[in-house]
């Protein structure tokens, strides 16, 4: 049956206009609370517009009237079935003590894989440097680490006051910027079926292993730990967590042992991936401050034992937080 278009539009236009105005108000103020009566009215108008749309289903998709009603229905649908929580506040304590450890523990396999690949890379970096000391300039991308380890340690320890002069804040900011950018890349590379993330973690491990071997083989293990631990106890796990997030994404993309559609797999992990992203960003901000304002000071300014204890305490606190026993009654865990 062909519609009597004029009568149809004349009859429905008031409700379309009312729906359009109600949606406009909601879109202007997304966090506004919706009263029950308004929600019921909105639902009625949505259903009525849906019914109008059903009458226009035979019209071509480009038809202006159909497009108009379709746009109204889709806007109303988005508003009525919105999953965004209105008026919720960020709860820092809840995030740090429950949300983050829970997401971390749920995706623990990806963390172990990230750690294993980094360790393999570190072993590779150390063995290459051990077999061919001349390969240092290829393995280590940092010019200030290329010289002799003894000379570097002597130079660092001779700077009694501070080696960064007045540039500590800038240095901290640059460290945060660089580390967060690398970590974001580790997450994003998860979309290469996780291969890019694995390569990045391996490379990171190679550099770490080579640097550690360089200092330890020269007998400067105490200097190394005192230099690296205060910030590394947080920074290295942060990059591993970024790798964990990337591998979780890669795992969802590959879908081994999971027959659900790709969209469902991504939806399942998106909350955990976001939690891990926020977590590593916070960790890297902390690590940036520690590296700029604490790690760069050496003996005799700060005793190595104090720096090592500080770093070890950070590491223990992090492990205790991430492996903490969570409420057993939580259905998600």
């Amino acid at each position, binding site marked *: 049956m062909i519609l009597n278009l004029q009568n149809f539009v004349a009859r429905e*236009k008031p409700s379309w206009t009312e729906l359009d105005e109600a949606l406009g108000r909601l879109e202007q103020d997304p966090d506004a609370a919706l009263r029950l009566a308004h929600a019921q009215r909105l639902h009625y108008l949505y259903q009525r517009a849906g019914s109008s749309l059903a009458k226009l289903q035979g019209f071509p998709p480009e038809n202006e009237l159909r497009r*108009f009603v379709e*746009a109204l229905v889709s806007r109303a649908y*988005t508003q009525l079935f919105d999953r965004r929580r209105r008026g919720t506040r960020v709860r820092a304590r809840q995030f740090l003590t429950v949300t983050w450890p829970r997401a971390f523990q749920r995706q623990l396999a990806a963390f172990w894989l990230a750690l294993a690949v980094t360790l393999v890379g570190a072993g590779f970096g150390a063995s290459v440097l051990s077999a061919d000391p001349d390969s240092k300039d290829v393995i280590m991308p940092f010019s200030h680490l290329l010289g002799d380890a003894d000379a570097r340690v002597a130079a660092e320890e001779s700077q009694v006051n501070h080696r960064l002069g007045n*540039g500590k804040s800038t240095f901290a900011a640059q460290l945060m910027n660089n580390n967060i950018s690398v970590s974001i890349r580790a997450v994003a590379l998860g979309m290469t079926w996780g291969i890019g993330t694995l390569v990045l973690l391996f490379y990171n491990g190679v550099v770490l292993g080579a640097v550690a071997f360089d200092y330890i083989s020269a007998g400067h293990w105490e200097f190394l730990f005192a230099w690296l631990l205060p910030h590394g106890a947080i920074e290295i796990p942060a990059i591993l967590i970024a790798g964990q997030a990337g591998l979780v994404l890669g795992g969802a993309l590959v879908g081994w042992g999971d027959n659900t559609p790709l969209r469902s797999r991504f939806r399942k992990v998106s909350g955990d*991936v976001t939690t891990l992203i926020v977590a590593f960003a916070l960790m890297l901000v902390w690590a940036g401050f520690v590296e700029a304002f604490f790690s760069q000071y050496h003996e005799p300014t700060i005793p190595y034992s104090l720096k090592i204890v500080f770093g070890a305490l950070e590491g223990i606190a992090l492990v205790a937080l991430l492996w903490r026993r969570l409420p057993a009654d939580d259905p998600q865990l």
Partner: protein
Amino acid sequence: MSTQLRNSSSSPSSQQNALEIETPEGIRFSLPLASPILRFIAWTVDLLIIALLTTALGQLVKAIAIVSTDLAAALYTLSYLVVSTGYGMALEWKLRGQTVGKRLVGLRVVDADGLGLESSQVVIRNLLRTIDLLPAFYGIGGAACLVSARAQRLGDLAANTVVIRTGLGGLPDLRELEGNSYNSLAANPVVAARLRRSVSYPVSTLALDAVLRRRELEPDGRVATFAALATHFRELGRLPESVTRGVSDEALVRNAVQVLFQPDAGSQRRR
């Protein structure tokens, strides 16, 4: 709720991809997907805004540098990171899937099921821009958009989001249908009934669209479109010469549309 892709194919030039959604109540609607070109334009606008914001921050930092150059440089580094990473996230969350560029171009990010965005979706799709931008100018993201049935870049794929077009016009002006002249078809009930019985729904809606949008057509295209439709109606409805004599193709089509969509109107109007 189910979603599927529809590829409308009214004509090759106007072909557009759309995401079709069926709600639990059985309501079906489609969301027109944004093309990579439109998205690129929106991104360019956003990029310009980010550049403006960072330039403004640079000026602000110059003022802070009077107090401490170290603090100023640190603030600039961090602000740049926050602005470049957080611009898309903050605006898409606050403006429900829109940045300034998207709003200007008429685009919106929505969940792949047509719902609003969750915070995790906003974070993931914006952070994964890092890989979509590679090797330059959205190379990977653009390629992914072109091969994806939902025109999704990798960030959209991971976040389960799509970018749709919004603001595709308002309620059409149905006064275009009315006209002022005598409707010879409506005045002849037998012919009108035959026309209603014989003309298919798709052709009738096509004619309706032609009449409503006739002012948008190029002169030559307008003449050709109405000539083809008028010929179709003449043949299908076996219209006698008495009702078509002296009536232009466009007037004939409008008369036919009036008969088809406004059975009560037109027959009373006289010259």
